[in-house]
């Protein structure tokens, strides 16, 4: 069970998020839509435990993973190490299998800089699912891809969500993406921003 109870988040004297209460059950998928600058990424960073400067509390499971807006890979480590290192104790064979699952067989020894953006996004997806998370957070994971590549990665994400069944909280600008991947679609809007469903 994931519980988010935010009373407020401000940057200096500028209020960004207002009162937000959100509960996700095991395997439940929630999408958050909203205009640019509404505070969607701030909300995700609070839920992920990256932003701790807020008034409220967040309860999340031990095994939490995140897919960032940029792939956020370690450029100086191989693709295989990028999957294995953040998931402590993950056997090498399991990391290899996860890479094969996302279509990156044969790319394990390459560095992220030698991959296309689509392949980097697949690596980020492999890293997120490799630790079999109970809770997955995704911050606009399909942006900057051409429609064909985006469709491939959305389909892959959908399949992997069905296989692993983590609870999902993700942010997107696309209502179609939200409807396709989520059980519940919420909107974040206003000043300070609040969720409505």
């Amino acid at each position, binding site marked *: 069970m994931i519980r988010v109870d935010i009373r407020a988040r401000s940057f200096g004297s500028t209020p960004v998020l207002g009162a937000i209460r959100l509960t996700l059950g095991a395997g439940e998928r929630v999408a958050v839509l909203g205009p640019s600058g509404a505070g969607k990424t701030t909300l995700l960073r609070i839920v992920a435990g990256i932003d701790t400067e807020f008034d409220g509390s967040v309860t999340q499971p031990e095994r939490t993973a995140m897919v960032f807006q940029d792939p956020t890979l370690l450029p*100086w480590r191989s693709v295989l190490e990028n999957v294995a290192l953040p998931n402590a104790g993950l056997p090498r064979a399991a990391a290899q299998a996860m890479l094969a699952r996302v279509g990156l067989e044969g790319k394990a020894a390459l560095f992220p800089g030698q991959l296309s953006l689509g392949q980097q996004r697949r690596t980020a997806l492999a890293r997120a699912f490799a630790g079999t998370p109970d809770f997955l957070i995704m911050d606009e994971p399909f942006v900057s891809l051409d429609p064909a590549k985006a469709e491939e990665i959305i389909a892959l994400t959908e399949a992997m969500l069905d296989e692993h069944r983590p609870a999902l909280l993700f942010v997107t600008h696309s209502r179609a993406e939200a409807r396709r991947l989520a059980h519940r679609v919420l909107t974040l809007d206003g000043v300070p921003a609040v969720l409505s469903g």
Partner: protein
Amino acid sequence: MRGRAALTRILSLLMLVALWALAARLTADATVLPAPGALIAPAWAEIASGELPYHLGRTFIRVFWAFALAMSLGAVLGFAMGRFPAMDRWLDAWLVVFLNLPALVLIVLCYLWIGLNETAAIVAVTLNKVPNVVAVVREGARALDPELDAMARVFRMSPATRLRHVLVPQLAPYLSAAGRSGLAIIWKIVLVVEFLGRSNGIGFKIHLFFQQFDVGMVLIYALSFIAVMLAVETFALQPWERRARRWRAP
């Protein structure tokens, strides 16, 4: 490509020797500037007697310890100052003081306070270098990618894993720059320290030959340590840098 770079390096050094030979010929006074060839026999005699290897070894040990201490202390302090603004506010003024304190003053004070011994020599050299390492590593710590930090937090990477795979690779170019300039500066300061207050080492020998106006022997001892530093650069620093940078290759 690497072979070509090595060849260019050798040719460049040979040009320097040629320039020296030309200057020696124009000077036409071996007591002022002996030709490169004239140094071979006395250099060999110094090596064969064991005199040069002994003093070279003493200087190398001092350089090694001062370098290791300055890099470790400087990296830890620089990282802390770059990451924690409160610490930076407290220590920045100290850093400016130590950066501007002349090497000679620190050396003299260390000899006066600690005594004319090995500890004072190494402490003096270390204190001279630490501020530079701090200043360079602090910039590296300020430039750390906050998104990689966020990723490490979300995935709950252990402190050791974060240090080895997230932080140190980002700091590597700064550590390398500090290390490179550090080695070059440290051995020069070690020579001054030896010149002023030790009874062995390259600096001590240069002091002796300076009193005898023996330019040839001064050059032999100075060049012998430059050769050691070139070897360290070629066989230790450059391979390490190549390894650390291999992910940037196309």
